[in-house]
């Protein structure tokens, strides 16, 4: 546990700095009301009305996030395997080759169905 303690100290210093900056800027800066200034910036014209929760966005971003989860899990499996590679022996090598081949099937499927194309 004493290994993780210093991280909390650095975290606390950074947090204190961030809070002081945000609060300090509030206190130090001027405050002058202006209706146009409080609108969302859109090059000087009236801002586009957005729906609740920020409005719509392209579905491609959602698909990318889903693919990320698949590959991130693959990476998380690869890390402990890589560290313990020398002690796992031939068994570890064969297992990971099978695993990578399995994920490659999914990868090929996504590629062929156009999941990796951006329009």
């Amino acid at each position, binding site marked *: 546990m004493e290994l993780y303690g210093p991280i909390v100290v650095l*975290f606390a210093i950074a947090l204190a700095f961030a809070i002081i900056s945000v609060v300090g*800027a509030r206190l130090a800066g001027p405050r002058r009301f202006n209706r146009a200034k409080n609108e*969302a910036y859109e090059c000087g014209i009236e801002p586009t009305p957005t729906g609740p929760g920020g409005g719509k966005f392209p579905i491609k971003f959602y698909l990318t996030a889903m693919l990320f989860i698949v590959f991130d899990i693959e990476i998380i499996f690869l890390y402990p395997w890589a560290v313990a590679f020398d002690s796992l022996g031939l068994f570890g090598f064969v297992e990971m080759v099978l695993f990578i081949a399995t994920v490659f099937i999914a990868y090929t499927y996504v590629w062929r169905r156009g999941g990796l194309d951006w329009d």
Partner: protein
Amino acid sequence: MNGLESFGQDPWWLVGLKALAIFVILVLLTLFSIWYERKVVAWMQVRPGPNRNGPFGLLQSLADGLKLAFKEDLVPKAADKIVFLLAPMISTVCAFTAFAVIPFGPVVSVFGVETPLQLTDLPVAVLLVLATSALGVYGIVLGGWSSGSTYSLLGSLRAAAQVISYEIAMGLSIVAVFLTAGSLSTSQIVAAQQGGQEVTLFGTSFTIPGWYALLLLPSFIVFAISVVGETNRAPFDLPEAESELVGGFHTEYSSLKFALFFLAEYINMVTVSAMATTLFLGGWQAPFPASWWPGANEGWWPVLWFFLKVLILLFGFVWLRGTLPRFRYDQFMRLGWKVLVPANLLWIVVLAAVRAGTQQPEWSAQWVGMIGGAFLLVLLVIWFWPGRKKYEQATEPDTGLGGFPVPPLDLQVPPSPRVKRLTAEREPVSVSAGDDATAEGKEG
């Protein structure tokens, strides 16, 4: 423990001192690298760059920061107030925390206490860096979303998609380092690169550094490309593409909240440079010519080598920005998903096969080769597996009318009896009478 005995032994004041030192170094390095970037880009464009505040304009970024502190702190009317406030704080805190496990140097004596020049080290230190850099994306996404502006929303979505795509490439590229070093702890990865290799060439034998950048060159290349995407820097600075998105996710931010985002971006740059130094460039160990000098890796000298390497990598970032135009978004995603990821996976398997064949001679090299060959065969079969027949629309004959729907040209339509009658009635009209008829039509 597993080689981390020298960590976690510091008295409380030393922990505080080290944490404070890292904080101060990061802030100073940010101020310096903003100036450095502006100056280097200026030289590349044959202009002087900032030169008014302080010697060589060194205090320019400090002046900018102070000026920002006295600007109005705007919160747009459409913004989600709390999230809008939290987002820059998340970015900054995550950026700072990632630096906790970066090794600056070996064990030195600070006020009579023997301690390593590193805040702390964990058995899973690199995971901490990856985790904090991934959490930092929340600051960008929430900041853009909570601004209530279209530009900010699009900028933050781009940033999220970009960072998670390139995080995969980055995560895969450092698997090779863990495979070779056999550890996730940063200090042990540096120690594993210590031993140089004796090479005899043309009768003279010399030592080449055991840096992973040389041993694992493909990994280093992929890492270098993907961290540029990871930190949203040019030529991959699509979340802030000013020609399309004004300022991207920080369009609505002003005052010190904007400064915090700026700070986080530069700290992330420093962090990935320090990570590249630690994982691939031998960490704090002296570079090649200075490594002949026996005292180069002792005492406080390694701090100099470390920052020298970080500054050279930062110069690389600036060089990219000064040289390359911005990518198009689809090209950028294609590079990440279709080039870097499969190349990396293949490289990992090749490296594992080579390591299995050389490090453990009791495994028959034939076996490893056979498994590797079978694996490549399987990949090829998967890749060229016949897919479903694509639905193809029946093509129409080219009519020369640009795709306009026309009936077949050789279609024989039986003439209707009514048409026959009409032509029969028109038959007796002579040419001169026809002229009269048109004249009448015009009048009518």
